[in-house]
């Protein structure tokens, strides 16, 4: 890859990031069209995109975003509220930005569909709006400045200390510039004088407010390598364009958040509202214990790391953990029983765990972005179906392994479409007649439960009619006519390949792939999906996933001379069998009466062909495995314990054994295979059908 390609890659990535950032903001704008901060954020993203596009010769993209930016900039300044048709234009324009970007990225000739159409709409909107645009002076005179000056001491001070009469600022604007500073700015050569000098070239700084962290130490520990200034607000009276001002900050803008906005003179009162310093200082002494925590609120800086590097790091940590547990469990080392040695062993163990959890956390990201994407999905489906839907999000900050986040989008999109399309009643009228609100509610939530990550998609729709499902299942040959199925078993037919309850194939959820695809994707992530439904009340789809793909919580069991790991997520319980509960059915196999249910028994040593010798049931341990096609029992020789293990792939062998999903290295260095409970179930199903 030559340098140009690398730069190009960085650029493309940056553009993608910007696009991803803007998308949810636009949707939020629908709810709060008057949120100027939001519009500003979107504007800034589009502005950067324009700069990037132009510097890389992406003419189509540049042309479009140029006009889009102009349109946004109007709404940014104007006091009028955006209406939904305008937000809609934003969203449609943004879609074009996305597809033009793809055209540019792939080097496709021509223009995406609707490019000119929407560009035309933007230009039209620009013409209208430009004639309406008020001059800044008009806005100033219309604002409550006159009163502010009487009431607000600070404004008086401004007037007093600057030679400007703020009542007559000649078309100049007052900019509020907020600069967030990291604690190591001095080490990086920050010099505030330079900024002040550059800003003075553009206008007059009339006021600056330093936000100093309470954690300033006493003189004993005072250290100028560390900056305690968290943020700096500057108010600049200038006739320059905002971009000229932002340019000054360009070279620190990477690390520090700079925000810029035009101050409504009314807002100046905000400046003045500040605690008298003495009062604040009293607070310092009381809260100095918390000062360590306060560091967190200092602007965060971040670096970008290739995920492959993280994976390598993660692998090495896995080995470190194994080596550490080998050392700590080694009999010979334990036999030394030297106090000092034990102390160091403990220290090693502790640091290893800390490193492991830190590295784990590097891979963890909040589910937020994926959830925000879902807003768009629901919006689109709601428009298409004409059903009014409100989507409620919760637990967006719940963290999950990054590699899983990427794979969650598809199943979530599918389930949400499904909820809107099949879950919510056909019309608001129908809902109202049932005593519900006309608008359908869908709740998308995420939470950590133990070592699992749980996502719920809950709707308040009509619920799943199991009698219809069963009828269909029988028609399709999934179910037998004369068998009594439990509600859960019936609902599970939904996940059979080729099962679709939609009366007509709709554009929304009937795309040939059904819930079976969802289930498959979730299982690939070592997770499972459950459904709860009540007629007339609604349906809940629950996705339960491990927190990470790299580690699994499992029971270590011995089968013959081999160790196996049984994923805890699928274990109901383990128990010593009572012989009289075990029955042998000729031609069918062995079963046990387990809490009133007759469950099949799988002898693991036989299944895995580890040894031909039969272990007597009475000397073995049974583990009940949960599976949506029915629980089953596995017979093992001994249950050794429960532990978290790092999952290793079997590499070239992995596709060959469906009963094994991978391998783990135990503290002793021995390899234990990880049982694939799904594969074992398939084996059972196969035996039954044969």
């Amino acid at each position, binding site marked *: 890859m030559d340098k140009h390609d690398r730069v190009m890659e960085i650029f493309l990535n940056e553009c993608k990031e910007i696009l991803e950032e803007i998308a949810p903001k636009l949707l939020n704008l629908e709810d709060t069209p008057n949120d100027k901060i939001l519009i500003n954020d979107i504007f800034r993203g589009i502005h950067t995109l324009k700069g990037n596009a132009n510097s890389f010769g992406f003419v189509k993209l540049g042309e479009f975003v140029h006009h889009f930016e102009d349109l946004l900039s109007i709404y940014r300044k104007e006091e009028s509220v955006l209406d939904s048709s305008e937000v809609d234009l934003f969203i449609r324009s943004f879609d074009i930005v996305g597809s033009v970007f793809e055209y540019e990225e792939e080097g496709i000739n021509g223009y995406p569909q609707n490019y000119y159409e929407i560009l035309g709409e933007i230009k039209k909107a620009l013409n209208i709006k430009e004639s309406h645009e008020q001059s800044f002076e008009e806005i100033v005179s219309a604002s409550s400045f006159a009163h502010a000056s009487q009431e607000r001491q600070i404004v008086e001070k401004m007037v007093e200390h600057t030679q400007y009469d703020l009542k007559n600022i000649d078309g100049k604007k007052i900019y509020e510039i907020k600069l967030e500073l990291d604690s190591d700015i001095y080490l990086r050569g920050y010099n505030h004088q330079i900024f002040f000098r550059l800003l003075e070239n553009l206008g007059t700084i009339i006021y600056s407010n330093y936000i100093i962290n*309470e954690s300033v130490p006493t003189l004993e520990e005072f250290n100028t390598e560390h900056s305690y200034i968290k943020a700096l607000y500057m108010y600049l009276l200038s006739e320059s364009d905002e971009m000229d001002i932002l340019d000054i900050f360009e070279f620190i803008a990477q690390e520090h958040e700079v925000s810029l906005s035009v101050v409504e003179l009314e807002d100046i009162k905000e400046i003045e509202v500040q605690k008298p310093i003495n009062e604040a*200082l009293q607070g310092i002494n009381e809260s100095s214990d918390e000062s360590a925590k306060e560091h967190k*609120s200092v602007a965060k800086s971040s670096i970008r790391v290739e995920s492959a590097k993280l994976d390598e790091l993660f692998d090495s940590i896995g080995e470190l953990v194994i080596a550490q547990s080998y050392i700590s469990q080694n009999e010979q080392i334990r036999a030394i029983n030297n106090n000092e040695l034990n102390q160091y062993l403990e220290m090693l163990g502790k640091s290893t765990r800390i490193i492991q959890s830190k590295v784990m956390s590097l891979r963890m990201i909040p589910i937020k972005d994926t959830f925000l994407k879902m807003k768009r999905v629901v919006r689109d489906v709601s428009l298409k179906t004409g059903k009014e839907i409100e989507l409620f999000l919760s637990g967006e900050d719940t963290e999950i392994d990054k590699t899983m986040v990427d794979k969650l989008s598809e199943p979530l999109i599918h389930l949400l479409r499904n909820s809107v399309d099949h879950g919510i009643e056909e019309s608001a009228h129908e809902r109202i007649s049932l005593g519900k609100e006309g608008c359908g509610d869908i709740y998308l939530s995420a939470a950590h439960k133990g070592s699992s990550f749980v996502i719920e998609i809950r709707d308040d729709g009509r619920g799943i009619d199991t009698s219809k499902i069963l009828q269909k299942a029988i028609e399709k040959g999934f179910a037998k006519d004369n068998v009594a199925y439990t509600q859960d078993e019936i609902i599970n037919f939904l996940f059979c390949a080729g099962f679709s309850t939609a009366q007509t194939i709709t554009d929304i959820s009937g795309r040939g792939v059904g819930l079976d695809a969802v289930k498959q994707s979730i299982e690939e992530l070592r997770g499972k999906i459950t459904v709860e439904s009540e007629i007339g009340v609604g349906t809940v789809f629950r996705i339960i996933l491990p927190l990470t793909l790299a580690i699994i919580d499992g029971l270590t069991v011995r089968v013959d001379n081999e160790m196996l790991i049984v994923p805890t997520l699928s274990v109901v319980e383990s128990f010593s069998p009572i012989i009289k509960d075990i029955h042998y059915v000729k031609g069918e196999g062995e079963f046990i009466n387990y809490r009133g249910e007759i469950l099949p028994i799988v002898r693991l040593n036989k299944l895995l062909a580890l040894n031909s010798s039969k272990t007597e049931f009475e000397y073995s341990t049974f583990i009940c495995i949960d599976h949506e096609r029915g629980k089953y029992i596995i017979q093992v020789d001994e249950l050794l314990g429960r532990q978290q293990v790092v999952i290793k792939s079997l590499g070239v062998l992995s596709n060959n054994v469906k009963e094994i999903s991978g391998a783990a290295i135990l503290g002793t260095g021995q390899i234990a295979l990880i049982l694939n409970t799904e594969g074992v179930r398939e084996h059972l199903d196969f035996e039954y059908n044969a």
Partner: protein
Amino acid sequence: MNLRDGVLIIDAKSSNDSLESLAKEILLNIEDVKEVIVDDALGVESSALFSLLVSIRKTAPNIAIDFLDKPSINVEGIGIVSLDIRG
């Protein structure tokens, strides 16, 4: 260090390094300091000065610091400056 009759005058043109050594000197003579005045006739060189003032206040709350006791002050070359101490 410019300390006379309990009045410490800090040169606002001090660099970060001299502010740091100044902090040590002040600490040694903290008993004698009654008041701190910032000489900003030539502007403020480093914003660490502001942190230093807060640090002095934290070490010896009884020392009068002109800069901190008013809600805001006019600093040569910067304009009106106020310090806001927050968590």
